[in-house]
């Protein structure tokens, strides 16, 4: 049914660290790889090797430049490049679900994941119109709506080793910029991370109440106390040699 649940037992979602993301697009590729072979219809490409390739992806990485305004303390602040992965935010008040005329789009009560039942989808595209984040893409080959499933076929999959029971994008991120967990539990690791780093919502004014949070990047041109964090490690450990090295030192001096 496309009526939203009053509340969900858990709020599974992602926390994306914009401070750490290096913009390598590995999450994009691993997402496409896993999701084209597993849950639902494959993620098709059109004209993949031709002049005008395009295809369906559930996760995409934008890159933005942010130019801070000059202040008295920082008269010429450096512009910062921020890589920005974007996928379904599994909103608590998901507008994509309520607009669906067929009941194909739904939000699960047990974990809050927003899914599409592809055999009920008529491909009208209205859910993609209702989503402010561009999280839904209509597959051109299959004619049904595709979206992030939070790798629902991985996270509960007992055929996989436990370490792999996280979304494919999280498992693959080489920078550790993506975290997965229950954002409805204030004691979970992801919730603590969000609290500590002041995690934020995208377009809060839309009233969608996204479950996924973004951790803001730290300013890279203002490092306060820790001028050189590697310096202590590079200092010589022993000023004066002892034991065998001391004897060798003295012997060589005499020659």
């Amino acid at each position, binding site marked *: 049914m496309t009526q939203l649940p009053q509340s969900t037992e858990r709020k599974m979602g992602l926390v994306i660290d914009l401070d750490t993301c290096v913009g390598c697009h590995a999450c994009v590729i691993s997402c496409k790889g896993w999701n084209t072979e597993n849950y639902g219809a494959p993620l098709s490409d059109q004209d993949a090797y031709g002049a005008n390739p395009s295809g369906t992806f559930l996760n995409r990485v934008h890159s933005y430049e*942010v130019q801070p305004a000059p202040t008295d303390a920082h008269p010429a602040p450096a512009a910062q490049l921020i890589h920005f992965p974007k996928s379904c935010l599994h909103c608590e008040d998901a507008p994509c679900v309520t607009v669906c005329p067929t009941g194909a789009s739904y939000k699960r009560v047990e974990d809050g994941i927003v899914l599409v039942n592809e055999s009920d989808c008529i491909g009208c595209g209205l859910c993609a119109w209702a989503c402010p984040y*561009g999280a839904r893409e209509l597959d051109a080959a299959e004619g*049904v709506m595709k979206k992030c499933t939070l790798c629902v076929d991985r996270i509960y999959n007992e055929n996989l080793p436990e370490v792999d029971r996280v979304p494919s994008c999280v498992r693959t991120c080489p920078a550790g910029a993506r975290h997965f967990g229950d954002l409805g539990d204030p004691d979970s690791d992801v919730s603590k991370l969000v609290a500590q780093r002041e995690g934020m919502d995208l377009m809060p004014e*839309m009233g969608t109440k996204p479950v996924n949070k973004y951790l803001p990047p730290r*300013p890279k041109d203002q490092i306060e106390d820790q001028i050189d964090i590697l310096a202590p490690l590079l200092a010589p450990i022993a000023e004066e040699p002892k034991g065998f090295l001391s004897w060798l030192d003295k012997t060589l001096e005499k020659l």
Partner: protein
Amino acid sequence: MHPAPSVILFTTLSGLGFGLLFFLGLGMPDVSGWVAFVFYAIAFGLSVGGLMASTFHLGHPERALKAFTQWKSSWLSREGWCAVIALIFMGLFAIGAVFFGQRWGALGILGTLFSLATVFTTSMIYTQLKTIPRWNMKLTPAMFLSFSLAGGALLAGQTGVAVPLLVIAAMIQALYWWLGDKAFAQSGTNMGTATGLGQRGAVTAFEPPHTGTNYLLREFVHVVGRKHAEKLRIISFLLAFFVPVILLLLPFNHFFALLAVLSHLAGVAVSRWLFFAQAEHVVGLYYGKR
């Protein structure tokens, strides 16, 4: 938004068709026999033809019946119900008028109400979308309803009603354009809120996530058509409202009446094209586009 011909055809034709059914249900004109047959053929042709056109953009039209299930939450589903109920009531009412020379008034009133409800639910499909500030206005249903009623009165030959309704629709259209042009800025959504980085400084798109195009850009970022928007607005306004009103004020003539209908239809189609082509979806912000 991508101005899909199927959706423009649907909203234009079925809006006009249900507008005509509205007046036929009220007995304006009170017709029977062959004359009624022609009126109802036009009304059903427009409304049903429009509904059929709307299924062309579906990925899986063969599953369209499933769209009747979610009337509790979905305006699209409600529109389907209203349209079917309106067509059933008006179909029975038409049988009475065409074959039995009877006017089953209660059926006509019900058909009238559901015809109006169909146009309203259609407009709500667009109005409900917060993601498209130009549509997310109270004036959107007013525009759809006023267009439908003005066009319906024109088709029904109700000159006395059509002229004031056309004038009202013209005023709503002008107001809609005026307010619509300010809607995106007033929504408060910009690249800063979209990325959450706005408090740190000015956000610009540095690199897109893909070198080619994709579904999102094709569907939501339609920039090409906006170039001639001002000219098209004038053309649409003249064709939809100005020309028909002048023609209706002239001494009555069947040829003038036909011209008025065709001019109105063309004008509304241009206005509907602009309705889509000028609508900016907030997802464009992620690409640094509108």
